[in-house]
């Protein structure tokens, strides 16, 4: 079980965001991607999920050796990809329960039906594990949820959908200390040889609860450094300047300046 991202170049609205990302995630591995704002971490997660806003210029994304670039968003999900989003979308009128039930039903073979009783028990257990409160099933999807509830609801979906590869995009933002611990514990419990995890974060605090096997630093749209837990500590204490200095990276976040093509002829009133 392997997810491979090969030399991926991605743009949005004519701006190149990813500039040659290479990453291999095997089942059972946990990867942390860190980096300054605007370096393409979330874009990487979104493009793997197939967000239509982004355009792949070149490169490939493969699951178990097969390219998924031609797969639609839902097909990628059913292949086992999951993205816990930074800003989960609100869907008024659709209950959490109906949504997750539909998501599980659509994964089943034709003619087979979800055992609702078993699903209710699993839903309630997952909800309790994440301290989500009893009314969660009947609340409309993410509507009126606090920031922390939205993040926990993403993890609840992950627990029930049991993906093969999961991207957690800044799942720690908006969480208080207790909620962070709960989320961390739940994600850690999900770790298994059948799950490859990619954590996108700015801070060490999430990685105190979920220990990664590999830590990657992303700058200027590509992974520039890979290491272990020591890398996290150094980033937390010294930021990213030393990485740039060490690797000789300059102006990584500078956008191209507009270039003047000359002056147009004008007509002035006398």
């Amino acid at each position, binding site marked *: 079980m392997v997810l491979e991202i090969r030399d991926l170049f991605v743009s949005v609205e004519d701006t190149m965001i990813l500039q040659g990302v290479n990453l291999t995630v095997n089942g059972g591995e946990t990867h942390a991607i860190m980096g300054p704002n605007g370096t393409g971490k979330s874009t990487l997660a979104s493009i793997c999920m197939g967000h239509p806003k982004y355009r792949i210029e070149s490169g490939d994304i493969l699951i178990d050796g097969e390219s998924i670039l031609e797969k639609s968003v839902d097909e990628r999900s059913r292949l086992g990809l999951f993205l816990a989003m930074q800003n989960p*979308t609100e*869907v008024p009128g659709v209950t959490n329960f109906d949504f997750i039930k539909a998501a599980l039903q659509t994964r089943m073979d034709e003619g087979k039906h979800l055992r609702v009783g078993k699903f209710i028990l699993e839903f309630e257990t997952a909800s309790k594990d994440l301290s989500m409160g009893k009314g969660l099933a009947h609340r409309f999807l993410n509507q009126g949820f606090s920031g922390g509830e939205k993040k926990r609801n993403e993890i609840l979906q992950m627990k029930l959908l049991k993906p093969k590869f999961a991207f957690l995009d800044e799942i720690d933002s908006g969480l208080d200390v207790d909620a962070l611990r709960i989320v961390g514990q739940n994600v850690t419990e999900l770790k298994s040889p059948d799950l490859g995890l990619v954590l996108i974060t700015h801070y060490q605090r999430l990685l105190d609860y979920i220990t990664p096997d590999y830590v990657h630093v992303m700058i200027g749209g590509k992974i520039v450094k890979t290491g272990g837990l020591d890398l996290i500590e150094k980033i937390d204490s010294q930021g990213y300047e030393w990485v740039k200095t060490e690797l000789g990276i300059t102006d990584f976040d500078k956008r191209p300046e507009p270039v003047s093509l000359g002056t147009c002829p004008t007509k002035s009133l006398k």
Partner: protein
Amino acid sequence: MKVPNYLEAKDNVILFQGNTVTNHSKQKVTGTEVLLDGSGTVFLYLEDYSQNEIHIKVSEHSQIELYMIYKSSKPCAYDIHFQVNSFAVLNIFSATRNIEVTTLDIHRTFHLGSQAVLNSTKALINMGTTSLVDEVHLDSELAQANLDLLNIGAYNDVFTVKQDVYHNAKSTLSNITNSLISHANAVLDYSVSGRIFKGNEFSSCKQQNKGIILDEAGVIQVLPKLYIDEYNVEASHGAAIGQMDEEQMYYLQSRGLTESEARSLIISGYTKPFVSAIQDEDIKQMIERQILKRINEANII
């Protein structure tokens, strides 16, 4: 004319069919006047009724659950006057059905007395050209009206809806929520207005309109209006009309739902809260079937 299956086993049914009024209820019906008294559930069925004016009075302190089903196979026009007296609660659920494409005009006027409560839930799911006028007069203090409406239009249907709320006394409350779905050239044209007159302080007038247009040719037009002539009041209106939300589609699809499953779920987000508010199971199932039929006929999902 026969009684529809979903009403056969019901107590308290009043039938307005053709030229005839048949009262199978304990309520008093005189000509076209219906007096609702006490507490309980009443079913009022109108099928191609020839007299257009009907008067419905709800006695003081009564608590009535009223189901009104309009079925038409030819052009029909109804002018229905409701008088909800002081301290009475009228929960009215109404649905329009037709088997032929036809025209239907409904004009409902409500007058509410002191501390009277009107909760109106209306499903407009019929075919053809429909005009609905709802005029609500909150005549005495603490009168309250909540209007919820679900409108699904398809195949060149035209719905013209006018909702006017008049706050004629202090401390009166109104809340209008419209959920609109347009597909395949359907035109849904809404004018929603609330009026708070001078001196009627501590009143609250709220409107919320949301609409989803499922193809390029559908039209939803909402004109929300507030006429406020008093300072110490609450008033708000909003209209969110648009096509299927791409971010919602992406989110649902990112969990494995196909495009049509995601569309279906988003549409159910409009219809389900409405349907789940219906207490009577037979009526609820009938409306669910009708919504599903209308949606499937129009290939919405």
